[in-house]
């Protein structure tokens, strides 16, 4: 199943629309990030990520 990234929140899923924010997803993305503990992550804070999960760094 192809992984797609949300054009808004960059969360990765296999859906046509993001399961979290319902915006369209794109198969044109790069960079990969797994957030395990957003409350204790400087990276999550920097990117304003509040939910654990997989994210792209750049989505077109």
């Amino acid at each position, binding site marked *: 199943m192809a992984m797609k990234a949300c054009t808004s929140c960059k969360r990765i899923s296999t859906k046509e629309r993001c399961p979290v924010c319902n915006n369209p997803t794109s198969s044109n993305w*790069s*960079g*990969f*990030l*797994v*957030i*395990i*503990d*957003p409350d*204790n*992550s*400087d*990276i*999550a*804070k*920097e*990117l304003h990520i509040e939910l654990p999960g*997989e994210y792209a*760094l*750049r989505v077109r």
Partner: protein
Amino acid sequence: MEGSENSIYALKISAGQERNVARMLARKSKDSGVGVSAVLVPESLKGYILVESSTKIDMQNPAFKIPHLRGIVESKTKGKEDKEENTVTFEEVKKFLNPEPIISSIQKG
């Protein structure tokens, strides 16, 4: 980053396996309770992943026994006191987090 105790370590990965290792490491750290809070795979850094952790990474921990994970990047200058020598600064990591310049941040001269 005010008051954060986290450090970021670079791990050496077999080329092409970066995402797989990142996913597996995330799953294993969640289960084993090591202090890993995020795993980053910058596209421009082939053969490496970056791991944010609140505890010093112990490669002997079962959480880090993962195929294609080849080891931690040790610094060339091994300091006696400075335990954080083999970490990556958050400023360096930021460059990978924002791969595209943001138009609004360009200063108007």
